[in-house]
C-alpha cells in the first residue's frame, strides 16, 4: 500500500495535549501512510478530535511533533496543505453553495477560469451541480455534508481530515455515504483520516484504524486484524459483540493454552505465548464463532458447553441468543436466520450444545 522508504503522510510523534489537568491525548505516536483511508475510533471524549485539530493547526501540542511527509507541521492553519471537514460542517451561512466551495480556492489566488472549473468539478463530484446557487439553510443534512466535503476537497489537500463527518446523518444515509466516501477516496488517492465513534463505520471505510482509549492508542491495524486479533479486553469489547471469559492458565504450549474458566470448566484457546501457568487471563469469544447444535448432534471444535437458551434477540438477518451454562454463566451466541421461518432457531427454554474451535478464541493477558 505504501512505499516503505517514503516517510508517512502524517506522523504523530509522541504528541501530548493537556487542557489544564485533563490530558486529551497522551504521548500519541501514529503513522498514517500516503493514500490510505485511516480511521481513529473510540468512544466519545477519548481524544479523537484533538489529534485532527492539532494536525489542522487550530491547536498546538503540549509536547511532541506532527510531521507531514517528514516535515514538521508548524505553520499557521491557513498555510497548511491539509484540510478539515467539520462535524458541524461549518458551512458559511451567508454564502451560496458555490461560494462556499470557491472560498478556499480564492485564497490561493488561482486564475478565475481555473477556480470556476474546479468548483463545477467538485460540485459534480458530490452530485450538487444543480444546487450551486442555494444557501446552506436551503439544503438537507446529506446535501450539506456533501458541500462540506466538496469545499475541503476543492483545495486538493495532501491529507483530508474528517471529524465525525457522517454523525449527523440518519442510519440509512450514513451507510450509503460510507461507501461513497470510500469510492471517492480510492478515486482521488488522497490520504483520508476519519474520526468516528461508530465501529461499523470505521471498519467499513478504513484501510487501517487506530482504536483509542483515554487519549492513547490501544491498537492499530486493519479492521479484520483488530476484530479477529484484538490486543486487549478493551479493544475486543469495543469492537463488536464478544464474550469475555475470565480464567486461570492451566497449561500452555506453542499452539494453544488451556484455561480453567469459572462456570465453564477447561477451555482450549489459541496460543498465548505471554501467559504463565497460574496467571489470570481472559478469553475473547465472538458470538458468531460459536456453533449451536440442538439435541444430541455433535458439533465441531475442541470446546463444548451445554446450556439453556434464556433470551432470544431477533435482529432480522440474525438472532442473538443468551445461553446459560450448567454452571450459571451467560454466553452470547449469534445464529444466522437462513430460512424465513422464525421458529427455525432455538427457542427460549431449549437445551443447546455449544461448540467452538480453539483457534477462534483469543487469549488476552490485558
Amino acid at each position: 500500500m505504501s512505499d516503505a522508504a517514503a516517510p508517512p503522510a502524517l506522523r504523530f510523534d509522541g504528541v501530548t495535549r493537556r487542557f489544564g489537568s485533563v490530558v486529551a491525548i497522551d504521548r500519541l505516536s501514529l503513522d498514517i501512510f500516503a493514500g490510505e483511508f485511516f480511521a481513529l475510533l473510540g468512544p466519545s471524549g477519548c481524544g479523537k478530535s484533538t489529534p485532527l485539530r492539532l494536525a489542522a493547526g487550530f491547536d498546538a501540542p503540549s509536547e511532541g511533533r506532527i510531521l507531514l511527509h517528514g516535515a514538521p507541521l508548524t505553520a499557521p492553519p491557513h498555510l497548511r496543505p491539509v484540510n478539515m471537514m467539520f462535524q458541524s460542517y461549518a458551512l458559511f451561512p451567508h454564502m451560496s453553495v458555490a461560494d462556499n466551495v470557491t472560498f478556499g480556492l480564492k485564497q490561493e489566488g488561482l486564475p478565475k477560469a481555473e477556480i470556476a472549473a474546479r468548483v463545477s468539478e467538485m460540485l459534480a463530484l458530490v452530485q450538487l451541480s444543480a444546487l450551486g446557487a442555494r444557501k446552506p439553510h436551503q439544503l438537507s443534512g446529506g446535501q450539506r455534508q456533501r458541500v462540506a466535503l466538496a469545499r475541503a476537497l476543492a483545495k486538493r489537500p495532501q491529507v483530508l481530515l474528517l471529524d465525525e463527518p457522517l454523525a449527523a446523518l440518519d442510519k440509512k444515509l450514513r451507510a450509503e455515504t460510507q461507501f461513497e466516501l470510500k469510492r471517492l477516496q480510492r478515486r482521488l488517492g488522497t490520504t483520508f483520516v476519519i474520526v468516528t465513534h461508530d465501529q461499523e463505520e470505521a471498519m467499513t471505510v478504513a484501510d487501517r484504524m487506530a482504536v483509542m482509549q483515554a487519549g492513547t492508542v490501544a491498537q492499530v491495524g486493519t479492521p479484520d486484524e483488530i476484530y479477529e486479533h484484538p490486543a486487549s479486553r478493551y479493544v475486543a469489547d469495543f469492537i463488536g459483540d464478544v464474550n469475555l471469559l475470565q480464567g486461570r492458565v492451566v497449561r500452555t504450549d506453542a499452539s494453544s493454552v488451556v484455561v480453567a474458566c469459572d462456570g465453564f470448566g477447561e477451555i482450549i484457546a489459541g496460543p498465548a505465548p505471554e501467559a504463565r501457568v497460574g496467571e489470570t487471563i481472559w478469553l475473547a469469544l465472538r458470538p458468531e464463532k460459536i456453533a449451536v447444535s440442538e439435541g444430541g448432534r455433535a458439533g465441531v471444535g475442541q470446546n463444548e458447553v451445554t446450556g439453556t437458551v434464556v433470551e432470544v434477540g431477533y435482529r432480522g438477518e440474525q438472532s442473538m441468543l443468551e445461553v446459560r451454562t450448567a454452571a450459571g454463566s451467560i454466553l452470547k451466541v449469534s445464529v444466522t436466520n437462513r430460512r424465513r421461518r422464525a421458529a427455525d432457531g432455538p427457542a427460549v427454554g431449549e437445551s443447546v450444545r455449544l461448540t467452538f474451535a480453539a483457534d477462534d478464541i483469543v487469549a488476552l493477558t490485558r
Partner: protein
Amino acid sequence: MSEGATQGGRGMRRSWTLRLAILLPFAWLVLFVLLPTLIAFKISLSQTVLAQPPYVPVLNPSGGWDAFVGFLNALSFENYTAVFTDSLYLASYLKSLQVAALSTALILLIGYPIAYAMARAPRGVQSVLLILVILPFWTAFLIRIYAWINILQRDGLLNQLLLSLGIVDAPIAWLASDTAVYIGIVYSYLPFMVLPLYATLERMDAALREAAADLGAPPWKIFWQITVPLSRPGILAGVLLCFIPIVGEFVIPDLLGSSSTLMIGQTLWTEFFANRDWPFASVVALVMLVILVGPIVLYEHLQARALEKAR
C-alpha cells in the same frame, strides 16, 4: 357531547384572554403614544399667544358646532412652512443628524473591538466584562455627565494629565466644544453598541472561523469575510440603538457643548421653555419624529426577523 362543550368553553376563554393580551398594550400605545402625538399635532397647527394655555385656538366643548367649525378654520400649517424656511431649524436638524451619524460611527469603531474581545475571552472572564459594561448604568446618567465636566474642565483631570506628561504646554479648552459633545455621547452610548454586538459575536460558531482558516484565509480576511458579515444583525441593532436617541439628545450637548451649534433637542427645549412657543415646539418635535420613522421601522423590522429566526 359534554366534552365538546367544555372544549368550546375553554377555547372561548382562551380567545378572550388573548384579546385582552393584545388589547392592553394596544390601549397603552393609544393612550401614551398616539394620543400625545395627536395633541402635539393639534398644537402644531395653532398660533402662539401670551396666555394660558399659550396658544390659540382652544377648543371650547360647550360652544357647539359653530365653535368647532371656527376652531378648525383657525388652525393652519403656517408653522410648518416656517420650520422649513428658517435656516436656524434646518441647521439644527442637520447638526443633529451629523452628530448622530459621526458619533454612531465612532461608537461602532470603538465598540466592535471591545465586543469582539469580550466574545473571544474565556467564559469566566466574559461575565465579568459584561458586568463592567453594564456597571455605569448603576449611576445616574446626569451624574456621569457632570463627572465628564469635571474631567474636561480647565483644571480638570484630562488637562492635568496632558500637562504632567508634557504633551501640551497650556490647558486646552475641552468644554463647550463639539469634541466634548462627541466624548460625552460616545461614552454614554457605547454600551448600547457593545451589548448587541457581543450577543451576536458570542453566539457565532467558532468552527466557522476555523473553517475559513483551514481553507487558507489569513486572520484579517476571516475577520472581514466571515466575522463582520455574520455580525451584521448586531451591527445594525447597535447602530440604530445609538443613532435614534442621539438625534434627539438634549442633556449631553446642553451640558458639554457650546451654544453656537445647537442640536435639535436643544432647539426644541428653547422653543418650549424659553420662548414658550408651544405650537412651534410641537412642529419641531413632529418633524424630528418623521425623520426618525425610517430608522425606527427598520429597527422594528430587524427585531421581528431576529425573533422569527430564533423560533
